[in-house]
């Protein structure tokens, strides 16, 4: 039975299995360090679709199909589909759910949606409410830039601390039985606000939330950072990762040995000029692709999300942020 430990942590008694998982990406992601782990690389950003939004959901559907195929399951086996993305009214998820046909729970945790989806899928499976749950998330550079920042044709200058939204999608089939990596623990994050207003400086806005979730996870479970082969945050980029390191040092928590950020892992230095990758797909494709292919024993994935909207930014509100952690054993 699923139980709670400490303030915010969930313990999965049955340790639900990642029975199948798949990642897809755009051309830039394909050329990056995470590229060789992708199951499918689209050579251009339109992906043959009539809009970038249609292209994004095409990626999500394709990731789900491949994840189900790897799990030797079909759409009719899916008891529940959980998905989230960055677009208004999470249309990538909703339209993909129409295609998948399974009962659907739409979620929004911005770029933390990946961990949030896995966390909830684990609860459904662990509690016996479902046998097979698919959790998916996607982001597309052109749809996200248009929605959160500027139309892409406008060609606005980006400061060095800005991040590049990852084009891609990841899907995982979480099941009660089978072979594969296992979901062991999850820590639900709290929304934090440290006064950042610049929508181009997401790493700094999200870093305190990531640090808070990591500290709470360690406190709730009595573990230390060294109990993990790797602790990875979702999409803080260079700027945000340095802030987390500093916050951790102040708390007496040593992250110097095994802490990385998916936003820094997804692209190589020569590919982009700014602080790294971001977006729902960032933590999804790096975790399910690159990290799942290494010889780790146990990793902690802390997906980070900024809970602002363009309207809230224009009205001068700060950017609140959240981070959810999932612990995976191999």
């Amino acid at each position, binding site marked *: 039975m699923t139980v709670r430990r400490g303030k915010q942590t969930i313990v999965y008694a049955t340790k639900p299995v990642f029975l199948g998982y798949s990642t897809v990406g755009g051309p830039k992601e394909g050329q990056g360090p995470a590229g060789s782990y992708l199951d499918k690389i689209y050579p251009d950003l339109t992906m043959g679709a009539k809009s970038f939004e249609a292209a994004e959901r095409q990626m999500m559907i394709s990731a789900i199909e491949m994840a189900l195929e790897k799990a030797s399951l079909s759409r009719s086996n899916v008891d529940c589909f959980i998905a989230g993305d960055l677009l208004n009214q999470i249309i990538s998820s909703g339209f993909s759910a129409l295609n998948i046909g399974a009962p659907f729970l739409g979620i929004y945790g911005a770029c933390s949606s990946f961990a949030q989806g896995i966390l909830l899928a684990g609860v459904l499976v662990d509690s016996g409410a479902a046998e097979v749950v698919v959790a998916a998330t996607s982001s597309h550079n052109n749809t996200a830039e248009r929605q959160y920042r500027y139309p892409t044709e406008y060609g606005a*200058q980006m400061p060095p601390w800005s991040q590049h939204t990852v084009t891609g999608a990841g899907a995982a089939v979480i099941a009660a039985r089978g072979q594969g990596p296992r979901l062991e623990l999850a820590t639900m994050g709290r929304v934090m606000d440290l006064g950042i207003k610049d929508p181009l400086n997401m790493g700094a806005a999200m870093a305190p939330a990531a640090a808070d979730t990591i500290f709470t996870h360690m406190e709730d479970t009595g573990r230390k950072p060294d109990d993990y082969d790797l602790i990875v945050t979702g999409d803080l980029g260079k700027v945000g990762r340095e802030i987390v390191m500093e916050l951790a040092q102040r708390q007496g928590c040593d992250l110097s040995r095994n802490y990385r950020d998916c936003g820094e892992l997804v692209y190589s230095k020569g590919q982009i000029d700014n602080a790294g990758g971001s977006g729902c797909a960032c933590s999804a494709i790096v975790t399910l692709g690159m990290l799942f292919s290494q010889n780790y024993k146990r990793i902690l994935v802390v997906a980070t999300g900024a809970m602002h909207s363009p309207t809230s930014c224009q009205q001068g509100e700060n950017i609140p942020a959240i981070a959810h952690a999932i612990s995976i054993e191999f």
Partner: protein
Amino acid sequence: MGTYLTAFLVGGTICLIAQLLFDLTPLTPAHVLVILVVAGGILGGLGLYDPLIKFAGAGATLPISSFGNSLAKGAMAEAACSGVIGILTGTFELTSTGVTASIIFGFLFALLFNPKG
């Protein structure tokens, strides 16, 4: 009339101011654009922008501040002829070519290329 050198120096300085506003303040590109247009309008209203154009030529007419200057000059010229209502009818007097061209070309290119971004 300006020379290549004065055009480069004045145009470059205007762009440098805009770049510094963007790099050193939390202002967005839209804020910086509006600040330059308004500054050009104020300088034009005070009669200071035309001497700058005389000195620097394209260095002063190309940056967006020149658009603000044209807005102010058009409004003032019409106001001198037909009174207060001239401020409204004259504002786009000098800039109507640019504004109309951007609308028409925007329309034509949207027809041709079906923009997605």
